[in-house]
């Protein structure tokens, strides 16, 4: 029934809520502790020469590198370029992937024809196409974005199409009893019912887009985090490599959280979770 709010909270229930909260807090505390411990051990091990800081770097040197990069005004430039390439690659892969999935859903014939090609393209290591893109498009940001697109679009197509195809046939039958045409079947049922799947595809794609961008930057670029990593490796500056990897981790996590936030506003408001 609808009436689900009980006005009174019993002591037992309070106790239960307290336990749930306590558990949440202890999980978070442990997570933070692990992170802190990792950096402390790393720093101490390097300082007392247990590990060679020349090849492993150490947190204090990472911090110094970070400050240096920032002071020279290079930090924001590199991070900005990489993030921009990722966002463009990610967005275009999502838009083009969804559009292709719609076409394949629409035409069963087209889907059947395309199937073997999609399978091959999906299992092909896209990095192998890198040199082709560079020759065709030139060694620059455009090639990096195309690389990103190549890596994430196939997954986007397959995930979204899968979402479209797993929509309950009975729901489709329902709108057909009202005389819905194919476009209406799509806009009234298939697309809204697939929103959660599409968001999930986006989550996978965020990760893949970062892979694409960094690979692209390894191959061609003169700027960006991927460039810093490759350059640092070549000149044996592990401080630079470690610093870039850490920034990359933070940026990737931030973008993932962005998609989670998008999910909250797009999906959760309209598909209230069943209790």
């Amino acid at each position, binding site marked *: 029934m609808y009436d689900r709010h009980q006005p009174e909270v019993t002591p037992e229930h309070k106790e239960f809520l307290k336990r749930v909260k306590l558990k949440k807090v202890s999980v978070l505390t442990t997570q933070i502790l692990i992170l802190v411990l990792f950096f402390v051990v790393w720093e101490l091990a390097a300082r007392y020469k247990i590990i060679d800081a020349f090849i492993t770097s150490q947190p204090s040197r990472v911090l110094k590198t970070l400050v240096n990069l920032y002071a020279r005004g290079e930090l924001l430039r590199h991070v900005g370029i990489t993030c921009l390439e990722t966002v463009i690659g990610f967005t275009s892969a999502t838009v083009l992937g969804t559009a292709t999935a719609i076409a394949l859903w629409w035409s069963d014939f087209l889907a059947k024809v395309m199937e073997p090609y999609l399978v091959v393209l999906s299992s092909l290591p896209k990095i192998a196409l890198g040199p082709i893109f560079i020759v065709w498009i030139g060694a620059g940001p455009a090639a990096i974005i195309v690389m990103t697109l190549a890596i994430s679009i196939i997954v986007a197509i397959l995930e979204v199409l899968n979402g479209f195809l797993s929509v309950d046939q*009975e*729901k489709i039958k*329902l709108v*057909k*009893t009202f*005389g819905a045409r194919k476009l209406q079947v799509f806009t*009234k049922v298939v697309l809204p019912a697939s929103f959660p799947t599409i968001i999930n595809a986006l989550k996978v794609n965020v990760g893949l887009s970062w892979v694409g961008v960094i690979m692209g930057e390894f191959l061609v670029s003169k700027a960006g985090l991927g460039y810093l990593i490759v350059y640092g490796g070549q000149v044996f500056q592990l401080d630079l490599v470690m610093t870039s990897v850490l920034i990359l981790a933070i940026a990737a996590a931030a973008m993932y959280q962005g998609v989670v936030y998008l999910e909250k506003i797009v999906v959760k408001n309209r598909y*209230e979770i069943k209790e």
Partner: protein
Amino acid sequence: MENAVEVHSVKMKYHSLNGEIDALEEIDLSVGRGEFISIVGPSGCGKSTLLSIIAGLLAPTAGYVLVNGKKVTGTSSEVGYMLQKDHLFDWRTIYGNVVLGLEIRGDLTPENAGYVQELLKMYGLYEFKDKYPNQLSGGMRQRAALIRTLAIKPDILLLDEAFSALDYQTRLAVAEDIYSIIKKENKTAVLVTHDIAEGISMADRVVVLSRRPAVIKNIHEIKLTCSNRTPLSSREAPEFRQYFNRIWKELDVHV
């Protein structure tokens, strides 16, 4: 007066790579205006196929169907269809769900919207119109699904196992509820069910189909001695058992 539905020598064959399946052999049936018909039959005998053909969702291999004297060529607003589950869309409010049919037909006029509001008021869902389906009980959801069907003002309601997704108690209550609404709105109804008791309790006539390929085995006129007939009071009537046993024997169920 003409019949609401007339089914004329309808045959249905399904084709698959493994061969042909004869679902319906030769079905002739007419449903009078305001009549409540139940169709029972062994599972997989083509009951739902028959309903889909009447609704215009499927074209029969041979034969034809008349609804209000006109030949069925596709779906129309004269026929409303209720499926096994309510299939309310989680992403729409109750109001958004009940106007779905009107929206698809492009008939969401202020007048029709007003009619929907009235239906919601009359059947106690008005205060829930801005809620989402998962905030409603199973019975209320089924009622919302019925209002969604009634909103397009059909003369004939087709109920395809419309209660079988509910648990037993809810099912009895919802059958009672839906029956009274159908009678109040003076609609013709065809119910497909595998539940013999449910079929008898609601119907003026019970049609028994044979195993596939289905033909009509028998049609039972249900005459019960009870005043103020509802599905629940029908079950109390002395003749109820006899009808049940006769139909049960005809269905010839082997486990």
